[in-house]
Structure formats: C-alpha cells, structure tokens
C-alpha cells in the first residue's frame, strides 16, 4: 500500500496530474436542488459511448471487413458465448446511447441551458447527436446480413433524391454501380474511423466548453439571461453557493452511469444480441428489410406520408432538423430559460415525442406491408370445402387479396378488413372496387375470369360477422 502511494506521488510529481486535473475535478458547480437528477444524462451518454468504444474495438478484432465474409465472421462471433455477450453489449450500448443523448438534448432544450454563453456547447452537442444517429445507421448495416445489405441499398436510394447529384451520391454510397464487394468497406471505415474521429473531436470541445462556461444553473421563471451581466452573476452564484463537482455532483453521474452500464450488460446477457438474418445474398428476394428500433419511426414516416410529399420529406426533413438545431441557440441565445416561461418549447418537445411514438408504433405494426407469408384461409374460416365460396376463398388467396386484407384474423392489414364484407357491401360494389383498384390497391381488370370473379364475390358475400346468413346475390355487374 505504501509502495503504491509512493509510486503515485512520484508519478504525480513528474506529470503534474493532480495540479492540472485536480482543479478540473473540483471546479465549483451550482446547486441543482430539485432538478439535480436531470443533470446525469450527458455523462451517462458518455458512459454509453465509452462502452461502445471498448466493445467496438473488441468486435473489430474478429470482424472481417469483406462483403463476402463479414456474415461468416459474425456467425463466428455469435457462436462463442463471450462473443455473443460483447455483441449484445454493443447493441444495447447503442440503444442506450440513442436514448440517453435524446434525453440529454430534451433536458438541455427544456431548461434553456443552450442560452448565452453556452451556445457552442449546444452546437457541438447537436453535431454529436447527428454523429450518434449516423453511427446507429452504419452500425446496423455492419450486421451484414440480408437486412444490413438492403439497408445500404435503401440508404443509396434515399441519397438519390438529392437534386442534381443524387445519382452520383447514391452510387458513391454503394461505392460502385451495385452493392457489392466495395460497399461494406466504405461503411466500416465510416463507422469505425471517420465518424468516431468526429465524435472524439466534438466531444473534446463539448467537454472543454462545459468546463469553460460552467454547468448551467437550474432555470428559474422570471430570471432571464442577459449576456451583459450573466457571467458576473454566474460567478457570484458559484462563490456564494457553489459546490465542488467532485464528489458532490459527480457521484450522481457515477451512480447513474453505473446503472446504465449494468442495465446494458444485463440486457446483453438476458436478451442477447440481435440474431443474424439470412446471408447478404442479393438474389434471395424474400427479404423484408426493417430498420432497427431507433429508425423504425422514420421507416413508418416514409410509408405513411402522401406520395407527393415524399421527396420533400426525404430531402428537407433532415435539413430542417439540422437547421432547427443550429438556429435554436443562435435565435434564442438570451431571455427566459425556464420552460414555464417558454410554453412553445414544451409544445415542440411534446409534439416530437408524440409524433415519433406514433410513427414508431405504426412502424412496428407496418400495416402498409403486404403479409406475403400468410397461409391460405383454413376451411374453418371459409366454412365450406367445395362450391363457389370455397373456390372464391382460393381466388382470394391466389390473387394476393389476402396479403393486404384480413379475413377472420388471417392476412394483411393494408386494406379494409373484409371479415364482414358481406354485411357492408353488395357484390356490385365489391366488383367495382376490384376492377377499378384504388390508390393503394391494384386494379384486377383483365386478371380475373368471369368464373373466378363470381366465386370471389360469392366468397366475399359470405363473410358475415352477424350470424344471419344472407342468401348470396350473384350478379355480374356492368355488362
């Protein structure tokens, strides 16, 4: 023990650690009182990031950056217990980082902590938020299974909507004409070198600014920020009631950060990493590319917005988001900080949360996706095994109706539920819709023989929720 102490004194003497880092650790911070637990999200994001760095380095020692072999190397990592755990930590660490950076951003925005003199704290943080999202996206792609492969294609297609250089940009992302050998290396390099380098750079500035400008004091309604007097006031506040960061504030960061790490680890062990899908073979067309949960809401957004707005949303959505992040501290650099005096900020955050939550839930349901794997309707649902109704049920399945329409719990949910079609529609109305199609339904003109149509109508007319069987009225319309 004494030897260790001597060693430390010797080291400190020749490096000056306690002289240089000591004052940083014990710099005074304002008392946060009731809101003190809201100040832990930033450091917890950092903790999650460090988890990502460590596990990322570990994973990269086994990952093979080759479009042809990355999948096999992941299979290898997955086949070992410790490999599964490390992958799991990396996956849940990413999720935690996204959630925590989101909470941190919301906290800083609601408390108005981005106001003078902390505008650059916010801007570097905005950069870090963007980079974190990019890491999430590229990271999902590096799980080079079928979905990872198609994620690259979807990314290129979205970049293609940029005016003028879209085509070039799309192929630049794919690193060639097609998604192939060169594609994965590009994303690997971005995920492992380029974006982390940016994160480290921005993070250093961000942390330096936190020290330079001091941690923001909790806002109080009726105490606006005036750039002319703020610094002097802040320093007098620190002098009168500041507490040393270490240990009086830092212990909460440590405590919460530890909980985060423990939660990540527990989830990694219990839930395990996301399973690998099919191999990244472009010729396996039975693929259903889905983003990981953090982009599920965006996936839903692109499905549910009106068709004509799509190019604008793909292009201007991220642009406006970035612009919003940049303009927040520039336009709102002074004045009231308390959310009680900034009702719009509450409204904005509430709307963003509601919108994202709504689209997220829709994305999980994915009602727009045809249920291509739904089985033919069983006889128990159809009710008969021969005759026009049974034939119609077969047509209903073969012509793809069932992929989008539910009948008694079977099939997709893109179109209206047809379990009670017979109660709601006459055969003529059904036939009109089948022939004319709609915005989200193909027209079956010329696709059905007269016989197929009449049996399909017979089947649909036999769909009742009311247990009163109606005699099917068979009539070929419009002749």
């Amino acid at each position, binding site marked *: 023990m004494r030897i260790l102490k001597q060693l430390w004194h010797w080291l400190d003497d020749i490096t000056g650690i306690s002289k240089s880092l000591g004052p940083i650790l014990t710099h005074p911070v304002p008392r946060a009182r009731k809101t003190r637990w809201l100040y832990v999200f930033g450091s917890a994001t950092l903790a999650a990031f460090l988890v990502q760095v460590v596990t990322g380095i570990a994973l990269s020692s086994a990952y093979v950056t080759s479009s042809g072999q990355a999948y096999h190397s992941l299979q290898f990592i997955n086949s070992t217990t410790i490999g599964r755990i490390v992958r799991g930590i990396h996956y849940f660490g990413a999720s935690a980082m996204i959630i925590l950076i989101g909470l941190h951003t919301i906290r800083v925005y609601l408390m108005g902590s981005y106001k003078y003199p902390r505008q650059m704290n916010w801007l570097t943080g905005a950069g870090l938020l963007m980079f974190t999202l990019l890491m999430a996206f590229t990271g999902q792609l590096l799980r080079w299974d079928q979905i990872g492969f198609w994620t690259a294609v979807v990314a290129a297609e979205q970049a*293609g909507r940029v005016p003028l250089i879209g085509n070039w940009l799309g*192929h630049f992302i794919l690193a060639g*004409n097609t998604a192939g050998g060169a594609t994965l290396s590009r994303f690997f390099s971005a995920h492992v070198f380029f974006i982390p380098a940016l994160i480290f750079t921005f993070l250093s500035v961000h942390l330096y600014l936190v020290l330079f400008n001091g941690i923001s004091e909790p806002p109080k309604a009726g105490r606006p920020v005036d750039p002319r007097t703020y610094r002097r006031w802040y320093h007098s506040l620190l002098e009168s009631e500041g507490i040393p960061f270490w240990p009086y504030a830092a212990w909460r960061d440590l405590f919460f950060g530890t909980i985060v790490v423990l939660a990540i680890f527990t989830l990694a062990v219990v839930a395990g990493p996301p399973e690998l899908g099919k191999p990244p073979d472009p010729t396996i*067309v039975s693929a259903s590319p889905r983003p990981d949960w953090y982009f599920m809401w965006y996936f839903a957004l692109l499905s549910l917005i009106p068709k004509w707005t799509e190019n604008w949303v793909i292009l201007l959505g991220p642009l406006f988001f970035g612009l919003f992040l940049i303009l927040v501290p520039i336009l709102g650099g002074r004045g009231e900080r308390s959310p009680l005096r900034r009702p719009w900020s509450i409204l904005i955050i509430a709307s963003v949360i509601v919108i994202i939550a709504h689209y997220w839930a829709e994305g999980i349901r994915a009602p727009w996706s045809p249920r291509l794997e739904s089985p033919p309707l069983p006889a128990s649902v159809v009710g008969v095994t021969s005759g026009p109704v049974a034939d119609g049920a077969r047509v209903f399945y073969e012509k793809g109706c069932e992929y989008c329409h539910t009948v008694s719990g079977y099939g997709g949910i893109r179109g209206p539920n047809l379990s009670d079609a017979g109660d709601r529609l006459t055969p003529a109305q059904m036939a009109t819709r089948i022939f004319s199609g709609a915005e989200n339904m*193909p027209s079956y003109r010329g696709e059905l023989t007269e016989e197929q149509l009449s049996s399909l109508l017979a089947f649909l007319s036999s769909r009742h929720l009311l247990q009163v069987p109606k005699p099917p009225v068979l009539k070929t319309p419009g002749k």
Partner: protein
Amino acid sequence: MQTFFFVAFPYIALILAVGVGLYRYFARRFTYSSLSSELVEKKYLFWGSVSWHYGITLILLAHLLVALLPAPSRLVLGNHTRLVVLELTGIGLGLYCLFGIVALIARRLPNKSAARSVTSPMDWILLLALGYQAFSGVGIAMFERWGAAWYLNTAVPWLWSLAILHPNAATVTGLPFFIQTHFINGFLVILLFPFTRLVHVVSLPLEYLWRPYQVVIWNRDPRRKQLPCPCQASAVPASAPPPLEPTDEKRRRSLTRIGILVGGISAAIVGIPSLAFLLGLRKAPREWRPLGAVDSFPVGQTVEVSFADASPLPWAGVTAKTAAWLRRDGPAQFTAFSINCTHLGCPVRWLPTANLFMCPCHGGVFYKDGTVASGPPPKPLVTYPVRLNKGIVEILTSPVPITTV
C-alpha cells in the same frame, strides 16, 4: 510540307511560346506589358481596343470550349436552331473584332504621327498576323463551306492528336488552302506571343472582376497601435514577453503566414489523394451475362434469374451476385425487370398467381408489365437490356437503379 505545317510547326510554336515566354517572364519581368500607347492616341484606341478585346476574348473562348469539350459541344451544335444562332453570333463577334483590329492598325498608320513612331517592326508583324487571323476567320465563316460543326470534326481531332502527342493531321490536310492558312497563322500568333507585346494576355487583370471599385489603404500600419489586451496581461504577468519591436512583429506575422501556408500544403498533399481515392468510383464496363437456354424459360412466365456483377471483386462473395425478374413474353421476346423497387430499392417479389410484383418494405405493388399498381413507388420497375445469343438468353449487367428527383 503538310507534315511540317500541321505537325512540326505547331510544336515549334508551342515550345517557343512556353520556353521563351518563361525566360522572358523570369529574366525580363518588366517587359511583360502591353506597352500602352493610350497617352499618344486615344480616340481610335477606344473603338479599336474595346471592339477587339471583347470580340476576340469571346471567340477564343468558344474555340477553346469546343476544343476542350468535344462531346458536349456536339450535343449543343447538334440542334439546327442552336447551330444557326451560334454561328450568327460567331460571325457578329468576328466582324466586331475585325473592325477593332482594323482600327488598331489604322491608328498607327498616319505618317509622322506619334503613334507611328512608337510602333516597332515586331508590332507591325503582330498586328498583321492578328489582322489576317480575324480576316481569315470571318472569311472562312462567310465564303467557305465551313461552320462550327466543321471545326468540331476537323480541327478539333487534329488539335487533340497534337495534345496527346499522337499527331495526326489527316482531318485537316485535305481542307482548302484558305482554311489551312487560318490554322497556320493561328500557330504563328502563338509563336509570336513571347516576342511581342502579346505577352500581356497572361497578365490578364482578372482580379478587377471582384475587387472593390476603389481600394482605400492606410498610410501607416493600424495594427501597430494595438495594445496587448488586459486579460492577457493579467493572465501571465511575470513571464509576458517584452513588447515587440515593429520589425519583430512583422517577422512574426510573416512566419505565421508561412506556417499556415506550409501546413496547408502538407494537408493538401495528404488530403487530396485520400479524398480522390475515396471519391473515385469503380467503373466497371457493362457485360452480357448468360442466363440460360431460351427453352428453359416457359413462355408467359416470370422467373427469378441471378448472374454475376460486371466485375465482381474477389472478396465480394455472395454480394457479387445480382438478381432480376425475367419474363418470356413470346418465343423470342424477353423482358428483365430490376428487383429493386423504385421507391427505396427493396427487393420486389413476383406473385405468379396474382400477376403482381409486391414490395415488402412500404407496400409498393407493380403490374406484370412493371407499371405501378399501387403504393408509394414513383415510377415503373426498371428494365435491363436482354438479348438472345445463339439460343442463350443474355442480360446486360446494369447499375442499381436509383430513383432521382
């Protein structure tokens, strides 16, 4: 003789122009001037100089653009209306600068005039050469069967052959003599460049285009009066360096600039090749790939086919493969659809009983001919070129179709 004029002479002219030009630039810097004679004669000069310089600049630019970008020029000139408009503009500009050079010659002609006395023999040679060039240019445009499109197909290939050091004068040797004199005289002007006042073209005052119309400068250096700011003084009171001497400050500033410059150069040396490497896309030639015998595809059916990329990388593994939906429309008619949905690129699935393509991502649906049936896709499925080659169906490898705005 033709070889001399169209191969050797151009090179001689260019080498002399560059070599002597450089020598004159470094050894006789102050002779890089147009030797203004504005003080001697002003009236003719205005009309002559303005007409000549505007006319010749635009005409030279047109010559240069077409020579440098033959393929886009071909597209531009390919339209009859555009060709006529451009040629009329060209003749107008040609007459404009012919008028200018005549005025410039005329102002030096009068005997015993001051303008005549400052004109050297070399000036006369240059003026005559330029005058002939303008005259022959306009003459060719008006009296020979010659036009902008001819220049593109005769002189440009010849100039390119000179530029890539594989001289080939075949496209110009057969032209009428009058046209050829325009070429030869053109290189004569290039040759004359370092020996005459024509050198002033490289001292083109481009900066005038963006500099403020008046420049106000300090008679003394304003920065010298700046005192070190008090915050700095208090931060390092003991070890603060003594106030700098003016010369020392100057030196410090120039060292800073040199530092930035040197750092910038190093950054460029490392950065530019890295960036170029990153931005460089692999250009694979498109290849025909066999898909199978014609008879292995039943008429009227759509099946998935897979084939290798144009030039698969050795480490690409399964990703080197590409898939397409191939339909046999008739005995010898095939259509190949890209599997990529035109919405966001997900793989569409063919549903044979429903005769529809469906996309699993956002629910896009296409009819069997590839047109949009429903959902978000903005345009029909992309088709790939297919051909029959000795009973084998072949497909042309194609880039992933990217839907652009």
